C-alpha cells in the first residue's frame, strides 16, 4: 500500500518533467523570398519549332521519323510533325535536313516538298549530297494561335532498302515555324 502511495506521489512529478516540452510551437515566420514561376516548358507542351535531339522531340513526331535522341533523324515514307503556335507573328516554315552521300548515290537528285495543314507551301531540289535549309512562307490564315499545326514532307525519289524494302527520304535536323 505504501508503495502505491509512493508511486502516486511520483506521478505528477514525472508527468511535469515529461510534458514540459509538450505543445512546443514555432511561433511566427516572415514571408520567405518569392520563387520565380517562369521556368520554361514541360515535355508535352508543343512549341513552334523542334530540334531533333531535344528531349521533347518525340512529342512533335506524328509518324515516319526515327525514334531516339540523335542529332539527325531519318525521315521515312510520309514523315509528319506537329507544332503549336502560341501567338501570332509566325510567317515562315523552316527545315534543316541533309541528303546523305550513301542514299544520294542510289537515288540521284531528290525533291523534297512540304505541306502545312495539307496545303503544299513549297519544295526544294537537292542535286547533291549534303545539308539543306528549306525556308518557305506560310500563307496567311493557315497558322492559328493555340491550335495544333501538322506539317508533312514528301521526298522523291526515296532510297529503298534492298533487304526489307524500307524507304528513306532524308536526314532531318530541325523543323518549325519562324517569324
Amino acid at each position: 500500500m505504501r508503495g502505491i502511495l509512493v508511486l502516486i506521489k511520483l506521478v505528477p512529478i514525472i508527468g511535469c518533467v515529461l510534458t514540459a516540452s509538450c505543445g512546443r510551437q514555432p511561433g511566427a515566420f516572415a514571408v520567405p523570398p518569392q520563387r520565380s514561376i517562369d521556368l520554361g516548358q514541360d515535355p508535352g507542351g508543343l512549341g513552334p519549332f523542334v530540334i531533333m535531339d531535344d528531349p521533347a522531340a518525340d512529342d512533335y513526331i506524328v509518324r515516319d521519323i526515327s525514334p531516339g535522341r540523335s542529332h539527325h533523324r531519318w525521315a521515312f515514307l510520309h514523315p509528319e510533325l506537329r507544332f503549336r503556335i502560341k501567338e501570332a507573328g509566325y510567317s515562315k516554315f523552316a527545315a534543316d535536313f541533309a541528303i546523305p552521300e550513301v542514299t544520294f548515290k542510289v537515288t540521284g537528285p531528290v525533291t523534297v516538298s512540304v505541306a502545312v495543314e495539307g496545303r503544299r507551301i513549297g519544295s526544294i531540289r537537292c542535286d547533291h549530297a549534303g545539308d539543306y535549309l528549306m525556308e518557305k512562307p506560310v500563307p496567311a490564315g493557315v497558322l492559328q494561335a493555340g491550335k495544333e499545326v501538322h506539317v508533312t514532307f514528301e521526298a522523291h525519289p526515296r532510297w529503298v532498302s534492298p533487304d526489307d524494302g524500307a524507304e528513306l527520304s532524308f536526314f532531318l535536323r530541325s523543323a518549325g515555324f519562324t517569324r
Partner: protein
Amino acid sequence: MKEVFSILFGAGFTIAVSVALGSLLLRALRVRMYRVEAALFAFISGAGVLSFLVTLLCLMQQARKGVFLWGGIAVIGAAVWRARVQKERLRTLPAIRLDWLVPFCLLFGVFFIYYFFNALAPEVSADGSGYHLGNVLRDWRHHGFDWEYRSMYSYLSQGAEMLFLFAFAFGRHSSSALVHFAFGCALPLLMICYGRRFGYPKAALFAALLVFLSPVIAKDGVSAYNDICVVTLVYAVFYLLQVWDQERSDNLLILIGLLAGFAYAVKYTAALTLPFAVAWLWRRHSLKIGTLARLGIPAALLIAPWILRNWIWVGNPFAPFLNAWFPNPFYHVGMERLYVDNLQHYPNLKHWWQIPLELTLRGGVVSGTFSPVFLMLPLSLIAWRKSQVRRLLFAAIIFAEPALLNTGARFLIPAAPFAALALGIALESVAFALPVLAMFTALVCWPPVLATYCDPGNWRIGEFPIREALRLEPSAPYIIKHSPDVALNSAIVEHVPPGERVYSFAGRPQAYLDRDIVVSYESALGNLVQEILWSPHGPAPRVRERFRFLPVTTDAVRVVNNTTWFNFWTVAEMRVFSKQKEVPRNPAWRIRAWPNGWEVPLAFDNSYATRWSTWQGIEPRARIEIEFPSPQPIDEVALECDPTWEAHLQVEIRMPGGRWVPMTDTVEYEKAEPPPGMRLAASRDVKALGFRYLLVNDGDFLYEDLKKYPKFWGMTQLAEVNGTHFYRID
C-alpha cells in the same frame, strides 16, 4: 589475416573491457554469485557500463581510438589488480550430469562454429549495414554524435551501438557484429546457469539449445543488430529478480536497475523491463522509497543520456515516437503514424492461424522463424502448478508485447527464453522428450536443412562464408553481392564533396557509403524533398479554393478547419485579394500555422513545387494564418492546393480587440493548372534545401519520368549500378 586479427581484437577487447568493468562493479556491489554466473553478469553489466561511458564520450565528441585503447587497458589493469588484491572464493553451481552436458556441448559447438564464421564475415545484414552500423560509422567520423544529421534511426537509443562503436574503432564492421554475437552466446549460458541454480538443469540445457538454434535468433545474433543484446538483458533482469527473491540483497537491486536501464538504452521496446522489475518487487515485497531508489537511480543513469540527448537535440525525449505529444520540426506526426501502422500489419496474411506456422516453419511473412518445437508451447501449461513455470510464462507474455507493435519475428525474441524454459520444465518428466526434441531442433534448424522447407524470404543464415570470414577472398565482392548499392560508393565519393549529403527515396547500406544519405521516410526533411520531387506528377495544386466575403479591414486573417479526418490538409500557396487584385506579399507579414507551423513558409514562397501540410490527420483548429503589419483591406482569400475534400474550412479575421470573427465558410472551387516548368521548379527547390545529388531506384515513382526527361529536370545521371541511378542536379 591481419584484418581478421584486427576484427577479433576489436571484439575481444570490447568483451574484455566489459568483463573488467563488470567485475569491478560486482566487487563494488559485493553481490554474491556463483563462478560462471559472475563471469556472465560481469560481461553483461560491464557492457552496460561501457556503453554508458562511450555514450558520454560521444556527447563530448571524444569517441576516439586512443581514448578507447588506453581507457580499456586501464580498466582491464584495474580489474586484474583488484582481483589480485581482493581474492574471492566463488561458489560453484550444482554440476550437470555428463551424459547431458556432452551432447549439449557437441550440438552447441557445431552451431557455434557455423554462426561464428557468419559473424566474422563482412557484415551485410539490412539494418546492420543500414542504420545500426550507419550510425556507428557516423559517430566514428565525428568522434561522437552527428548533431547535424537527422534521421528517425539516429534518434533511437543506441546502447548496443555504443559497444559496436568501441569495437568498430579497432576492427570495423565485423568486430561490431561479433560483439552482438557474444551476447548471443552469453544468453544460452545464462539460461543454463539459471537452470542449475534453480533446480532445472536438464530443462535449461534443452531451452538453451532451443533458443540458440532458432534461426531468427541465430541470424540476428550474427548481425550487427541489437535484439539479442535486448533478450540477454531482459533475461538477466528476470534472473536477478529470482535471485533477489532468495537473497533480498539491496545491492542486487542496483544491478537490476542498471541492467533494466541498459535494456532501454539498447532498444526502446525493452523499456518494459524496468516496470516489470518494479511490478515484480511490488508483488513480492512492499515497495519502499529505498527500494525504488536503488532500482531507479542506476536505471535512470543509463536511460537519461538518451532521453536528454533527444530532448535537447530534437525537442522530443522519446523521438522518433510520441511526436504528437512533443511536436518538433524533425519528424512528422503523420509519418510516425504511417511508419507504426506499417510495422503493425502483416503483409500477405490470409488468416491469423497462419501466424504460428509462419513463426516456426515458413518465416516469409514475419521475416524469421523459431524452432518448430515452439509449436508445442501450449504443453507448458501441463506444469502450470509449478510457480517457476507460471513466472516464466508470465514473463514470456509481458516481453512478447512489443510484437503487437511490430510483426517481425525478431520482436518475439525477448519472450523466447522464457517460453523455451517453461516448455522444458513441463516436458522434463516425459522420458526422452527433451533429448529427442533437442535433436529434432538441431536437425530442422541446421541452415542447409532449413532452406529446404522454409519460405525463400525467411530471414536466416543462408551460407557458410568461411573464406570471406577469414578474408581469404576480398570483402568487396561479397558486400556488393548482398548490398549492390555499395558499388556506387566510388562514384559518390568522386562527385559529392565531403560534408555534402545525398538524397535517396529508399534506405541504403550507409555503413559502407562515405557520404551521409538522407532517406525520404526517415525525417521531415526527407519527407519534404520527396514531396517536392513528386510535385510535377501529384501534389501540385490543381484547384484554387476561393473564399469571397464583404470587404473588411483587418490586421490578421486565417483559414481554420472545423472537422476531423484522417487525411492531411495541404496548401501550396495562400493568397489574399482586395478588389480582385492580389495583395502583394510583404516581408513584414507574420505567418503561422498549426499543426506543423515550422513549414508554413512553404505556403508563401510562390513555388508550386512546395506546400505546407499538417502532416497529420486534420482536426478542429488546424489553421494557416497571416498577420499584417498594419490593418489591410481584403475581400478574398484563395488557397491553391490539392484539396482535402473532407476539410470544413472557414475564413476568420481578427478584430481590433484580438477576437477572431468568422467571415465565410463558402468556398468556390476553381480549376487551376500549375505553371509549366514544374520539374525545374522541383529541382531548384530541392537544390535550395542543400541537395545536389540523388539516388533513384528503377522502381521509384520518379524514375521513369527522370529517365525520359532529364533535361526538363535539369539533372544528369552520373552512374548506375544494378538498377540504382546516381543523379546530379545541374
